[in-house]
């Protein structure tokens, strides 16, 4: 059977499963839509949260970014898991006790101000839209490969599918669909990793295989650790070593911190903890969510390192000092079929620049390699394009795994990208129609008009995300990281101060959120271009060229500190919070008396 047919089969079967479960579960109760998770066991809720949370960034993009930089991109691993500690300790139990459904409602009530609620809604829309752009990048990659068409066509078709999926909507809220999505997603991620780990190290657990010795059959020489071998061959080709640090500590710390705080500030994650049955369940749920996320995150670094090793060895089949792979081999040998399929998407390419019939893959920007290249008549790196976002999806093909594994990965990648993109679109549309229009601007609008405006908001959001996704500000995970920076600078500080301080007042919170969001957004636009339009940036997007020597992906942590400082300073110089707000904060801090979450 053709690989295309097998992919179609797996993708079709997984979607039939989700829809089947959605229909079966919906028959029971329609109110599940908002209250997904109520009366659901913390373990089940944790699994559903994990599916909600792990998107194209985690599934498709992250391991590729780690593969090509190694240690420096550990920030993604630490940042996107460390945020759950903040969530569990500082937010989840108290927001559950507060007992409403949305983040902006808490901010509006705690800071006794419709303006604060409005500002929170704006922060939410800005962060979520940026997040969707990152997802669309992943959607484009997944559809392009799956339908064997160009990345651009894949993105456009994907956008239509995401829109339909989001309008169908309710599916998102059904916990058991998300549990099914999680199972497909984690199997699709780990099964190929187990195969590859066995091939390379003989260890069936990829996370342990990463720190094991390579099989002597493949490695050739007795006992060499996988990471040592990887370091050896990448430095041989003039690339930066895999395990050493090459980024300055300040940027790495701030970037990691941004991702952590952002995780705890993203509305669609926080919302899941509003609706667990009890305050104590909110604490456990965060832990279980991280357990299920960790299954993927402990495997991701192994996927990255092993793929990098496999790719490099395919390009240099006789070792880094031997002959490079020939064009003829790439065209005829079935182990190189994946290069042809991915070439169709326009995300992978090679070119025999010096016409010697071989494809030399090396770092042509390295001074050390210049001499060797000169001596061998190389005229630059001939493996000209390898988009980081294709690595995870291409991984099973690179390792020559059975075709059913490749089909499974296609299904997993689409599930990850679609579910999160659709979920974010729902969050944006309800923010616009419910919080912004109905709550603020036109309180008397009919339910029908509210529904209509929700659809329009959704269509506008996906249109914006698709247009910007055609020329994304970075790889999927990098764009998503910007969204986390925006959430970190705006939402998280307001929530935390709302719970841990009784002194922060309405004016302080609004000033804090606006300055945090404003600073971070302007800083990102200065480096990535205004509204992410390429060429309109004032500073190059590199560490050395950046305004404060801080990368745009890491600035969210600074924005958060500004938010805290401004809110505190302004509050101290304005009227104290009223007594009923102090009472509200006191009651949020104690679990006793928590009722069910109530609708608004």
């Amino acid at each position, binding site marked *: 059977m053709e690989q295309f047919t097998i992919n179609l089969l797996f993708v079709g079967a997984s979607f039939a499963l989700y829809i089947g479960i959605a229909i079966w579960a919906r028959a029971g109760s329609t109110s599940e839509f908002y209250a997904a998770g109520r009366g659901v066991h913390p373990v089940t809720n944790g699994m559903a949260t994990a599916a909600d949370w792990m998107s194209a960034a985690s599934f498709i993009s992250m391991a590729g970014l*780690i593969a090509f930089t190694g*240690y420096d991109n*550990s920030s993604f*691993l*630490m940042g996107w*898991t*460390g945020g*759950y*500690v*903040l969530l*569990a*300790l*500082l937010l989840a*139990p108290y927001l559950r006790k507060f007992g409403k459904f949305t983040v902006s409602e808490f901010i509006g009530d705690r800071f006794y101000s419709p303006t604060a609620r409005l500002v929170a809604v704006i922060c939410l829309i800005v962060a979520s839209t940026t997040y969707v752009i990152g997802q669309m990048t992943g959607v484009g990659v997944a559809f392009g490969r799956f339908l064997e068409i160009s990345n651009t066509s894949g993105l456009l078709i994907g956008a239509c599918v995401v829109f339909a999926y989001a309008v169908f909507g309710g599916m998102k809220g059904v916990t058991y669909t998300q549990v099914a999505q999680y199972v497909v997603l984690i199997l699709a991620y780990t099964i190929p990793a187990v195969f590859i780990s066995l091939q390379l190290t003989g260890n069936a657990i990829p*996370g342990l295989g*990463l*720190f*094991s*010795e390579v099989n002597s059959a493949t490695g050739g020489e007795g006992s*060499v*650790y*996988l*990471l*040592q071998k990887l370091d050896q061959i990448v430095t041989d080709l003039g690339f930066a070593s895999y*395990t050493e*640090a090459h980024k300055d*500590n300040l940027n*790495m*710390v701030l970037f*990691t*911190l941004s991702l952590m705080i952002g995780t705890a500030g993203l509305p669609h994650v926080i919302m899941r903890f509003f609706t667990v049955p*009890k*305050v*104590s369940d909110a*604490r*456990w749920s*965060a*832990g279980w969510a*991280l*357990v299920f996320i*960790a299954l993927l*995150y*402990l495997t991701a*670094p192994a996927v990255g390192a092993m793929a990098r090793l496999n790719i490099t060895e395919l390009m240099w089949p006789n070792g880094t000092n031997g002959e490079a792979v020939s064009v003829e081999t790439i065209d005829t040998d079935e182990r190189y079929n994946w290069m042809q399929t991915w070439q169709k998407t326009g995300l992978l390419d090679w070119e025999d620049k010096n016409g010697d019939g071989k494809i030399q893959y090396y770092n042509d920007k390295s001074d050390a390699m210049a001499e060797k290249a000169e001596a061998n008549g190389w005229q630059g790196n001939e493996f000209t394009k390898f988009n980081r976002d294709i690595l995870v999806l291409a991984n099973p093909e690179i390792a020559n795994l059975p075709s059913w594994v490749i089909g499974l990965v296609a299904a997993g990648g689409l599930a990850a990208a679609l579910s999160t993109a659709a979920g974010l679109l729902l969050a944006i549309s309800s923010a616009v129609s419910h919080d912004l229009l109905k709550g603020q601007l036109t309180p008397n609008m009919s339910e029908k008009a509210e529904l209509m405006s929700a659809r329009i908001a959704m269509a506008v959001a996906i249109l914006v995300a698709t247009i910007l996704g055609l020329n994304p500000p970075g790889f999927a995970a990098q764009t998503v990281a910007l969204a986390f920076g925006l959430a970190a600078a705006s939402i998280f500080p307001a929530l935390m101060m709302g719970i841990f301080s009784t002194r922060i007042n309405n004016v302080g919170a609004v000033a804090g959120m606006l300055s945090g969001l404003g600073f971070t957004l302007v800083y990102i636009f200065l480096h990535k271009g205004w509204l992410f339009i390429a060429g309109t940036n004032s500073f190059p997007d590199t560490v050395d060229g950046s305004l404060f020597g801080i990368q745009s992906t890491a600035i969210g942590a600074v924005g958060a500190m500004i938010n805290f400082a401004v809110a505190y300073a302004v509050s101290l110089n304005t009227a104290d919070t009223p007594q009923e707000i102090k009472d509200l904060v*006191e009651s949020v*801090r*104690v*679990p*006793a*008396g*928590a009722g069910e979450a109530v609708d608004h």
Partner: protein
Amino acid sequence: MSEQPDPSAYWKANLRVIKISLIIWAIVPFGFGILLRPLLSGIEIGGTDLGFWVAQQGSILVFLAIIFFYAWRMNKLDREHGVEE
């Protein structure tokens, strides 16, 4: 132990647990994983040093331990202070 519920004593105890947990939360990734990595480079793990392992896997395991410890400790505090649901 559950006498009259005293919210302020409960809150103080909670803050103490949070403080200890967050110190560990910060030291492991930012300390062992990034800033102090050169100092720990002598400790070898699977072909690389401890800092690399902490940055790529160790931190995640520590985060898990912190969350489960906190949930367990707080549920106990809830009962001790008579403020459980």
